[in-house]
């Protein structure tokens, strides 16, 4: 493999046929489900983690 090809090759190859979940009329890719789950986790963390305290000036 040429050096440039090595540089262009990513450690995780996602260029293969995706996996999809079907539930009635709903179809969703596993990749989208992962991203949506991460967003929900981030939202929950933003709600629940304590906000950094600033210094009171007066």
């Amino acid at each position: 493999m040429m050096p440039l090809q090595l540089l262009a090759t990513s450690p995780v190859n996602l260029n293969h046929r995706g996996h999809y979940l079907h539930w009635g009329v709903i179809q969703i890719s596993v990749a989208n489900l992962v991203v949506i789950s991460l967003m929900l986790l981030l939202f929950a963390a933003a709600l629940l983690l304590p906000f950094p305290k600033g210094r009171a000036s007066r």
Partner: protein
Amino acid sequence: MTTTAPVASSPVVRAERAPQPSDGSWQGRNREYDLLKEFVVALVVVALLAAGLAALFSSPDEHQVTLTSWSTAAPTDFVATAATELDGTSGTATYGAPYTRTPDAAQKIGPVSLQHIAGVTHPINTSTDFITGPLASLPGDPTVSAALAQWTAASAAQQQSWSGSYDAALQKAAGNDPAKVAPGSYGPVPTMLTGLLRLAQAGRLDGALLLQGSFYQTDYTKPLLFIADGSYLADKGGAEHLAGEQWGMMNETGSYPGQAWLWLYTFWYQVKPFSTSGNADALVMVVMTVLSIGLISVPFLPGIRSIPKWIPVHRIIWRDYYRNTGSSTS
């Protein structure tokens, strides 16, 4: 840049802890808040995330579908599609505005045809733009040139008879294979379409359809419409779950995540009456417009505007305040 901000920016807190003076200035406690620092931190974090994820996962690398790749991979589909372009029955030829003048083709919202309001801004005659024009502009095969001359000399009715008969015979042939078309009165059509196939496979049709009379060729409308009229591109899209009935708007090729935020737009296309309507695009646009206006109007909608009382997410965000002041304040 350090600025000061009220310790509690909730309007409720302001009202309780520090009554507003007549000039409206904040009289409560202030807290230092470095906006520039927060901006830089956010920028660096997002930049590192973007660069790291790009290095880790790269990006979708689906090869472009061109007239050359299509005609080489699926020559029978290419010729069958070219036959519909020639006799004016293809998707593009019957699309209506902005490409053709087909009055009953447009989607409507009641009596209003939004598609036709702007008119035919990109006129396309599929027969001349996709077939005879490229054949005439790229001479080189005397057989094809003779066929083209015969076509050009014939009346419009004769041309329609030849092309319509060949299109119908091609659709009946096994596998839509031009070699298996039943004998008939097709005039120069088979020769022209075979010539167009050779032209496309040689890579010359892509260039011919991109010619726009200027140095830079950036308008891919014609080759894209031609390709989209065939089943090759649709089949490839369907295999990647990109079709409308597959929630395709929110999907991406390969195993990459797609545009998940378009879930509501694409949801409507999956359910009746949208999934079976010829006006689906117009209807979905109306529904989303109404919903968007509803979202903007949330503060004014009785019941909807009270959702924070039933689902008090704000009490989690401002839990320190509610812990200190008791639970009676909403």
